[in-house]
């Protein structure tokens, strides 16, 4: 007779309180459902809200945020945080613009350099964090000062880009049927989400990231390459930020040190709203896409409204966030 084989238990019924929420896809599904509800509400309230292009614009206008948030998802899953991403985006736009406009580099070469620099910068911060046991928050905050500072050093004012290659990519619209289009940046963002989701779910690196976020000591005792993976996480985040910078450059056709101010917070918010736990180890890249869309839809609702004064705009954004998070919490609890 074996006790466990015949025990009459329902799996995972033990209440662990709020401290350990072992939900699988529930947060993701709730997020998506609430997103749909918000879109529906917008459609009822405002004319023209439900047109497919408005929805596609969510992707077009938030492509860079989405890419940054994919990198951030990995960082947060590993239990860290990366505050430098917004600044790295700005730095990438400035460097790219500078190289292309003022030094006559071919954009593709410049883009390759920018991506490599982004990944290298991230890796450097990762090394500082792991090798010298520094707190990620502080290291990446200093990294944020550094990247913005370097961007300002390269050029204080904004640089316009009129290189034919850049402009033709920027104006390129990929038709998706019904006269609706996506930008190149949006397509890159979707690819980034897909790649991120695959990386997280089906590779050794991805699973190691989850393991580190769950219990770092255990991950080490299991013989997982904890330090290497953690450094790679920051490199990945830096790379994503640089890629987002490239997409941002196409989006704006300019490089400017003040671009993407506060983007790090939006990215973190998107990740967390998408159901990833800030303490690490739990969440999905697909959720992050949902989080980005939710933030985008809040913004779109506000611009469609057109009645709010400046301060009511802020209050309304806060209120929508609140409503969203409260509902999310309600559904997670219910389960």
């Amino acid at each position, binding site marked *: 007779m074996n006790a466990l084989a015949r025990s009459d238990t329902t799996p995972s019924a033990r209440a662990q309180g709020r401290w350990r929420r072992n939900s699988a896809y529930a947060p993701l599904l709730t997020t998506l459902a609430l997103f749909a509800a918000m879109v529906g509400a917008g459609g009822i309230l*405002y*004319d*023209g*809200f439900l*047109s497919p*292009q*408005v929805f596609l*614009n969510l992707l*077009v*206008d938030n492509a860079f945020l989405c890419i940054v948030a994919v990198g951030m998802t990995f960082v947060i899953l590993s239990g860290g945080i990366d505050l430098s991403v917004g600044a790295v985006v700005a730095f990438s736009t400035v460097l790219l613009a500078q190289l292309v406009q003022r030094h006559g580099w071919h954009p593709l070469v410049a883009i390759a350099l920018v991506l490599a620099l982004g990944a290298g910068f991230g890796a450097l911060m990762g090394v500082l964090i792991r090798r010298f046991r520094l707190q990620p928050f502080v290291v990446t905050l200093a990294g944020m000062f550094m990247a913005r500072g370097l961007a*300002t050093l390269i050029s*204080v*004012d*904004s*640089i*316009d880009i*009129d290189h034919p290659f850049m*402009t033709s990519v*920027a*104006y390129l619209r990929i038709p998706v049927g019904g006269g609706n289009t996506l930008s190149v940046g949006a397509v890159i963002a979707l690819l980034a989400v897909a790649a991120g989701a695959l990386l997280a779910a089906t590779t050794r690196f991805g699973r190691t990231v989850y393991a580190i976020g769950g219990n770092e000591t255990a991950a080490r005792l299991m013989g997982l390459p904890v330090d290497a993976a953690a450094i790679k996480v920051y490199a990945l985040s830096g790379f994503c930020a640089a890629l987002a910078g490239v997409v941002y450059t196409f*989006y*704006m*056709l*300019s490089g*400017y*040190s*003040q*671009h*993407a*101010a*506060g983007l790090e917070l939006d990215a973190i918010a998107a990740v967390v709203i998408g159901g990833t736990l800030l303490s690490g180890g739990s969440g999905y890249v697909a959720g992050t896409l949902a989080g980005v869309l939710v933030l*985008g839809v809040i*913004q*779109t609702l*506000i*611009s*469609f409204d*057109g*009645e*709010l*004064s*400046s*301060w009511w*705009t*802020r209050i309304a954004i806060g209120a929508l966030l609140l409503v969203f998070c409260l509902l999310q919490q309600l559904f997670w609890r219910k389960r």
Partner: protein
Amino acid sequence: DRQADRITVGFSQVGAESEWRTANTASVRAALEAPGFNLKFSDAQQKQENQIKALRSFIAQRVDVIAFSPVVESGWETVLREAKAARIPVVLTDRAVKVSDDSLYATFIGSDFVEEGRKAARWLLQDSEGKPGPMRVVELQGTVGSAPAIDRMKGFHEIIDADPRFRIVRSQSGDFTRAKGKEVMEAFLKAEDGKIDVLFAHNDDMAIGAIQAIEEAGLKPGQDIRIVSIDGVRGAFEAMKAGKLNATVECNPLFGPRLAELVRDVHAGKPVPKRVVVEEGVFVASQAAAELPKRKY
């Protein structure tokens, strides 16, 4: 019906980062909420991304005219092309944009930041007539990289650098705020041991903060240190009335009515000038008492 006769205007404001901006918003809203208009207002929270999103939503809502105060000069090409493709005319306010194709916008109404810097410098030259050099000048810059900061600095230096009596000994950013203006000025006063003759602040708020720092250091603002700043907000006039600020270069935010006219003309397809300059003056301390009650912001 009447709704159809109204001109729907989408107006995207930068944000509400200063009193100047608030006054500007109020003026525009008052003018465009008048009968005959249907205003869609959107505040971008100082982010260009948000502004682009707002423009896209205006296009999706098929407004008649788009007006906006760009956060920065560059980066508008793509979305303006979309507006053009949707046949929606665009009016720029407050700041210009750099685009390869001028036809992307109908007209631009607003101030010339470089000229404001020049005006401040010219006032200083005028006020320093007959005074021997060297005069030690400190500069409180606006937010690093912002268009007004860059342009006002450019205009000011253009004139001042030509006069050997003036030497800009310190220049630091005060982020356009009173608190930072005061903090930076405190540090300047100590680093220069009080030997400062002129302060040029990129906006009034920083000047107001700096005035407090100067007073706390035991000096007399307006006398020991002459001060010129830009914007012409109410606080500056109060300071001038008290003799603590010497001059302010007006940067007029109240162009709402003029904007409304332009919008109407643009919508009607009438020809409009590509550049409409707002009337602005330079006010000095002696005018303050008379001018103060008239200030609307």
